[in-house]
């Protein structure tokens, strides 16, 4: 916040969920479809993949897991997940330095019905930055 003497100070009211450093927690309840538990989104990326082809990352050497597609009407969309989000944690497990297959496995554990994701969003950062200026 910039303070100019004599001018009114602008204050930003941050939402409760945004209080932890530009990241968002999303809770997705898996949907049972036939014999599969699906979450309703697709992931791309990983340390064994080529980061240059990721359309959502700002830094083209970022090998993190990104959400590439969200099925309309699926559990992920209902929970508020958006395309382009970078998945940082799944149920407490770190997702920034995993291979693509490890990420898939962590998301599709058969004994879990709810996954709690910690995601970062570009638009989120920009919105906060703009409001703070």
């Amino acid at each position, binding site marked *: 916040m910039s303070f100019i003497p004599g001018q009114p100070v602008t204050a930003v009211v941050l939402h409760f969920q945004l209080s932890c450093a530009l990241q968002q927690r999303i809770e997705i309840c898996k949907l049972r479809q036939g014999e599969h538990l699906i979450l309703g989104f697709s992931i*791309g990326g990983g340390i064994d993949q080529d980061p240059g082809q990721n359309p959502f990352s700002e830094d083209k050497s970022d090998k993190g897991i990104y959400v*590439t597609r969200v099925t309309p009407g699926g559990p992920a969309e209902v929970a508020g997940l958006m395309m382009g989000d970078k998945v940082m944690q799944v149920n407490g497990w770190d997702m920034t330095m995993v291979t693509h297959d490890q990420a898939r496995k962590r998301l599709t554990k058969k004994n879990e019905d709810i996954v709690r994701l910690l995601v970062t969003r570009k638009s989120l950062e920009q919105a906060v930055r703009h409001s703070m200026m």
Partner: protein
Amino acid sequence: MDTESTYSGYSYYSGRSRGSHRHGERIRDHHKSRSKDGSRSEKSVTINAPPAEPLLGDSSVLGEEVQDDNWGETTTAVTGTSEHSLSQEDIVRITKDLEDSVGLDCRRYFSLTLAVVLGLLVFLTPLAFLALPHLLWPDKLLVCGTACEGLFISVAFKLLILLLAVWALFFRAPRASLPRVFVFRALLAVLVLLFVVSYWLFYGVRILDSQDENYQGIVQYAVSLVDALLFIHYLAIVLLELRQLQPAFSVCVTRSTDGETRHYNLGQLSIQRAALVIIENYYRDFSVHNPALLTASKSRAAKHLAGLKVYNVDGEFPASPATGPENNAATGLAHSQSRAMIAAAARRRDTSHNELYYEEAEHERRVRKRKARLVVAVEEAFTHIKRMQEEEQKKAPGDVMDPREAAQAIFPSMARSLQKYLRTTRQQHCHSMESIQQHLAFCITNNMTPKAFLESYLTPGPTLQYGRERWLARQWTLVSEASVTSGLKEGAIFLLKCIDFSLVVTAKRIPYIQLSEEFIDPKSHKFVLRLQSETSV
């Protein structure tokens, strides 16, 4: 194929004053004069038949009215002369050749005699060295042993090789005549003469005067002379033949009329020899010079000039006779007039670019249309001819034609479309009816397709493809600021003038290339896949 260039009087006198033997050039000139005499008799019956008329001969056969829409384009006038007429060009050319030949004959014979004399001197000297002791003091001489007689064989074979080598290098028919003497040959002749004279001096003083009895020593002396002559011949090969092979200069040759440019790599040559190489390559590489293609730009230039006129309303006459101050005023007036003209021309809004664009598009369309008609006509004409097999020859002996008659039989069906195409591309004066029929007979004989027959008419070929009268091989003049016997240098510029055009030649040195190496281990070629998978969860 000889080329002769006109020589200035300066070069003639400079050659004489050198006092050296120009036997190389003499030989070339001598051979050239002999061949020229043979060709001169052909020249008196050269026929320059006007090309347009003969191709129209078939129109009466077809029976339709000849309303040739391009009749206004034919520029040649048919004069009512006989077959043995000479055009003005021919007369000028013949008189010029006569003058040249009378002037150069003495030069050629002089150099030829000098060359023959030098050759005989060189060849007979070792033999004289061997024979004179036997003639002058036979009784005092020691007997020639085995080693000495073995040296006789060596002398004989070396002299034979020297004879063949000198003939191969110096005495063959020249292919061109250059304006100035060939410097290296002159220098070599001087060197050989000095060499032989010094050997004779030594022989005269130390052997003849003292009447040496050691005949083996004399024979070895003669062998050393022949060896040294062979080494001089080796030097001659390096100077005359090898030095020019390694490329050192890149020359850029541009034709002044239409800007066609080629680049050649040459070795270290004198300017006149480089000019000779360039002319020989010109005949092979450059398309034939067609003055009819340049009329369009000339008419545009004339239109530019005709657009503006300068009128002087102040009453001063710039053409008045010159006295000091008045002259300055006149030139100042002329300068201001030309500057005013340039400024006015720049401001004038003219649409000549528009005309040029549409004219070119129209011409292109017309050429393509005529070409399509021509190709169809020729293909159809070729289907009427079939090569007869051996077995059929015995069965049906009637109505069999040789290639020339076959060409004459199918020519009328394609003649008109070919003539129209040549007129549109302005090539009609390059091909006469006789040459077209000859070419057709040639293609029929060699089983060529219609496309192969047409190739020489669709694209203008090199000058050698056309008749001899287009070669203009005797009309080249070398124009150079530097002496023509000096070597090519970086940035040398000279001109090769022919009658209608000139070739501008610039020389540049080929750069010194520094090549470095880099080693790649074959095991270092490793690859990974670029993955980007997407998984649905």
